[in-house]
């Protein structure tokens, strides 16, 4: 009974919210370009669903490519930093600077580097920048958080540096890496959207471009529809990674 109530509660709440929104729009005769009622957004979804989905795929694939690139770069750099304290100290200020600089602020520069003919490269580059940090810091923390007593045992048994890395530090880092990737995936999607906004032109054909395009034409319902697709995509990506993380942890820990 309680489980049913738990399941129904969000459904009921969201339905009430949508109904209130719909009724308010009609009662106060809000013009649709200002705030479209949910029914108009549903209509826009039906009309341009295919277009939005293909744009959504553009944005999603950009984010996934960025995630893969960030994963390789961040893991490799974290490994170097974990192996050498000198390298860690050397790159620390650059990492912090990268993390605290708003991605939107470096977007125009990245675009110049990518070349105006390749806006998609700039978008991937920006998404890589935002996805990089959680993976890097997760991997580095994980590589440095081996159980000190277990490390003493490895020393006692005369383990080489290589053995300690492969059999102790990398396995210890696994859960941290998984958590880092989960956070990074969401950020990569945000980075891709921000990149598309900054690129501004239709060159990228992503969801952000659909939102700009629709807003410029005062097709607010279509902009909302695009937003809806984006939100669903983000939630699905997060859910998928959450599931993957849980599965991987079961494998790692045996339950």
């Amino acid at each position, binding site marked *: 009974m309680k489980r049913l109530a738990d399941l129904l509660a969000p459904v009921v709440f969201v339905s009430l919210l949508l109904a209130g929104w719909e009724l308010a729009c009609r009662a106060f005769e809000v013009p649709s370009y200002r705030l479209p009622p949910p029914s108009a957004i549903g209509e826009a979804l039906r009309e341009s669903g295919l277009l939005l989905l293909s744009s959504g795929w553009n944005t999603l694939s950009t984010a996934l490519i960025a995630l893969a690139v960030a994963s390789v770069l961040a893991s490799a750099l974290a490994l170097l930093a974990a192996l050498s304290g000198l390298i860690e100290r050397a790159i620390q200020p650059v990492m912090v600077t990268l993390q605290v600089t708003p991605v939107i602020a470096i977007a125009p520069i990245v675009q110049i580097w990518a070349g105006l003919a390749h806006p998609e490269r700039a978008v991937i580059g920006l998404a890589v920048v935002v996805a990089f940090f959680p993976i890097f810091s997760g991997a580095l923390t994980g590589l440095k958080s081996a159980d000190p007593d277990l490390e*003493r045992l490895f020393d006692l048994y005369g383990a080489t540096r290589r053995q300690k890395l492969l059999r102790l530090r990398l396995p210890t880092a696994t859960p941290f890496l998984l958590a880092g990737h989960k956070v990074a995936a969401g950020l990569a999607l945000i980075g891709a959207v921000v990149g598309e906004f900054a690129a501004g032109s239709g060159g990228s054909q992503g969801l952000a471009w659909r939102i700009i395009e629709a807003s410029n034409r005062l097709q607010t319902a279509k902009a909302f529809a695009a937003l809806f697709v984006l939100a669903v995509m983000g939630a699905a990506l997060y859910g998928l990674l959450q599931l993957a993380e849980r599965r991987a942890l079961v494998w790692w820990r045996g339950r």
Partner: protein
Amino acid sequence: MIASLSGVEVDYRGRGRALGPFDLQVGEGEIIALVGPSGCGKSTAMRLLAGLEQPSRGTVTRAPGRGETSLVFQAPTLAPWMSATANVALPLELAGADRRTARAQASEALARVGLSGVEAARPAQLSGGMAMRVSLARALVTRPKLLLLDEPFAALDEITRRTLADDVLALWAELKPAILFVTHNVEEAVYMASRVVVMTRGPGRLAGEVAVEGALPRPAGFRVTEGFRRAAETVSTLLARGMEAAA
């Protein structure tokens, strides 16, 4: 003699003296309990004998070979991503043994500590007592000459503690490693050791030594014998005196 500390002192930067001067000789096949108040440097003495730490002054001699000294901590300290067998096989594999041989010897060691059938289980699936046995099996798999136990049963309940104490003594009778174990528990020290070394409050020095009579492993009812009671009382007196001496 299998290992010794002579005139060792350990200073930690910023925290002053942690141990010593302190002497300890561990004879072959001997079981020694190291008892003392918290912070007296018992664990430091143990790390010196394991070669994991160097003394600021004095000399340490230890069994030189790889795997000749083994260590068991208060926590089982198992790798959660490895099966029980893989955890036990680890010291052998790190020393270059091939996987099949190492795993076979690990299964044997697990059987010796009474854990047949949990070879594939992960540490998270084992009870505290079982995990401690896996840890013990890992320490024994290299057939060490010196087994160091750093408060190995402190986190376990009384029943499990007593069972494990008897099991350790039975394993000792079979393999005859020298055992040095640290404990807070006077009765446990007297029950398990043929010699109890009492330390003063930190920085720890020798407060006294008590030889415990009687056969090892202990016969049933040893805890109610006159010899047990007398030894326990002497150890307690030495402990109390050690606290005052430093104060």
